[in-house]
């Protein structure tokens, strides 16, 4: 069949197995009606169809309009990510699905509370490291600190790794909140 190039976006000649492709990580912002069970619908979609959730945050962002924003970090091949977005998009309470990973530069932030216990040098070292990372101390006793760190998930990972040998006791992380840059 003679068809001019560029008449279609993708070619059927490179039909690839969905599973052969590279695994990617995407951050999705899902705007939903904040009604009973909406989170269960979103999570149920992931578990029911075998998709991954790496991180999940939810909170109402418009109290009058009863809208919540769910930020999901998920992994999959490009085809699976497209399916996830399409499946989310057809849930009745979902208003919008934004893929922050492809729609342009975005900022991602996460908050963590990290408890470190130790005495003497260890304690001093932990505090020094916290200063380097510009981490706040939100609670301290003679034998422990609770640090509050905000930043990209990788920064939190790096800081917790550093704390591990210095008496890390407990970590609480919020999961990622993300938003597009610019207007």
């Amino acid at each position, binding site marked *: 069949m003679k068809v001019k190039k560029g008449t279609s976006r*993708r070619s059927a000649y490179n*039909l690839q197995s969905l599973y052969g492709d590279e695994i990617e990580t995407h951050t999705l912002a899902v705007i939903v009606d904040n009604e009973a*069970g909406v989170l269960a619908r979103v999570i149920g979609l992931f578990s029911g169809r075998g998709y991954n959730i790496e991180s999940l945050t939810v909170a109402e962002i418009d109290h009058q309009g009863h809208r919540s924003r769910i930020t999901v970090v998920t992994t999959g091949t490009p085809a699976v990510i497209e399916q996830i977005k*399409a499946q989310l*998009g057809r849930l009745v309470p979902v*208003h919008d699905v934004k893929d922050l990973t492809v729609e342009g530069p975005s900022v991602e932030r996460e908050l963590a509370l990290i408890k470190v216990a130790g005495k003497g040098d260890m304690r001093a070292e932990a505090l020094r490291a916290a200063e380097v990372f510009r981490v706040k101390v939100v609670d301290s006793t003679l034998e422990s600190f609770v640090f509050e760190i905000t930043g990209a998930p990788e920064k939190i990972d790096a800081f917790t790794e550093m704390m591990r040998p210095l008496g890390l006791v407990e970590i609480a992380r919020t999961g990622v909140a993300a938003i597009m840059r610019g207007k």
Partner: protein
Amino acid sequence: MTRQLTGAQIVVKVLKDQGVDVVFGYPGGAVLPIYDEIFKQNDIKHVLVRHEQGATHAAEGYARATGKPGVVLVTSGPGATNAVTGMTDALMDSIPMVVLTGQVPTFMIGNDAFQEADTVGITRPCTKHNWLVRETDNLAQTMHQAFHVATSGRPGPVLVDIPKDVQFANGNYINPAKANKGHYSPRVKGDIEQITALVNLIENAEKPIIYSGGGVINSGPAASALLRELANSTKFPVTSTLMGLGAYPASSDQWLGMLGMHGTYEANMAMHGCDLMINVGARFDDRITGVVSAFSPNSKKAHIDIDPSSINKVITVDVPIIGDCGHVLEDLLKIWKSRGRKTQAGSVQKWWNQLKEWRAVNCLSFEQKGNIIKPQYALQRLEALTKKHDRYVTTEVGQHQMWAAQFMDFNDPNRWMTSGGLGTMGYGFPASIGVQMAHPKSLVINVAGEASWLMNMQELGTAIQYRLPVKQFILNNERLGMVRQWQELLHGERYSSSWSEALPDFVKLAEAFGAKGIQVQDPADLDEAIIEMINYEGPVVFDCQVEKHENCFPMIPSGKAHNEMLLGDASTEGAIEASGAVMV
């Protein structure tokens, strides 16, 4: 102005205002106030089924045969859980259905109250959407929205769970026009740029095929008419999925028959060899594609579907068009005509020569000899003797279902109701009841297997009670035939639990309910018996005793491609390899 009504009155008023004329249901403690209101009126007919699963399939049959949503009313707990199969079936086949369930009173929810179940939780994955209504003031609004969601975009089942105290309390009624439908409104118009890209492919295709599906039927009769116009004016061949039968008339020369696992040779070979595939409202289901990596390797593919999640889910396509089949076909035809109605007529003619060669293989041929009825012959005779009637056909699930699809011809949409996506044995009988409720004067036949039919045979009581003359045409092979076929091909002929043992005497069974029973064994008696069935004014259970070991062909074994189909007389030994055996 809004009016104060009880919740139960609101339920009935919403149903009336939504144009509902029949509800399939079963009462119980948690829906008694609603049943009380149903008792007090005559506009809505209530059909008392014999099992809630029956109510859901009856509603599906009604919906498929009318294009209107089917409505189900059941009680809490077991009433709701019994409805789960039908909702899942409706979800898989995109059937509009509104299920109303009673629930324990709001102040008892969570207490493990009598007949309490987390209905909204249980049915979340098997509905398009569901709601628990906690206040009577929200009831009308929610129910109107439920009808909107069930019927717009890709249709599907929805559920509204109504606690008993909400049914008793007073609340405001609002009519459909005033109700807030929410933001849910899937787009129906396709992207013009993509539609134009498809026109370009149509103008250049040398070996095209139109592959249509249930979406055309769901879109309404206008979409079927447009599909016919597209096919007839381009001379492109047409095949369809099990769900799409009737959208394009089987009587046309351009009809290749159904495609897929038990589709015709010509349809599957055409799918494999085409250079342009136009998918209109189908979803590349695994029964259709065979092994995906070898699916139609040399074609450009266009896909028209109202559900964006269907696009590129299984098969990556060149031209995705998100929209309602009817709207998209209308725009497509407009653009194609405005550009001069071009096709590669010469090449398409050559393609037809090839298609005719494939058709000449006569893949559905069988030999009726001796004194045992072949199931194919039974259906051929049923087709011949009923095709002039105003006829609707439902089926159960198994070999008989595939033979019905192969040997019966459908020339109009909404005439064929079968459980495609879920493959639910027990669907056909209650579905036939729903169809007959919608079309009381028509001939409604359920083509059944004896095993499937027994799964919801209690509905014979419903057929008798409402004087529904549904014809139960049972191809009795005393086997779970389709299972037996797979065991023969895949499991070394070890027929593990695939016998229908201890079968009832179907004639006596029919008579016990007050229906007519007919049994035939001899091919020579078949025609007369079928005519007797048609002419009888009430429900008939027709026990057609057929060849027990007949296999359904053609067959694309699992894990194989379209061009590796098995035909009836070919050797089937080792046809399915271990890698294919893991597939269903």
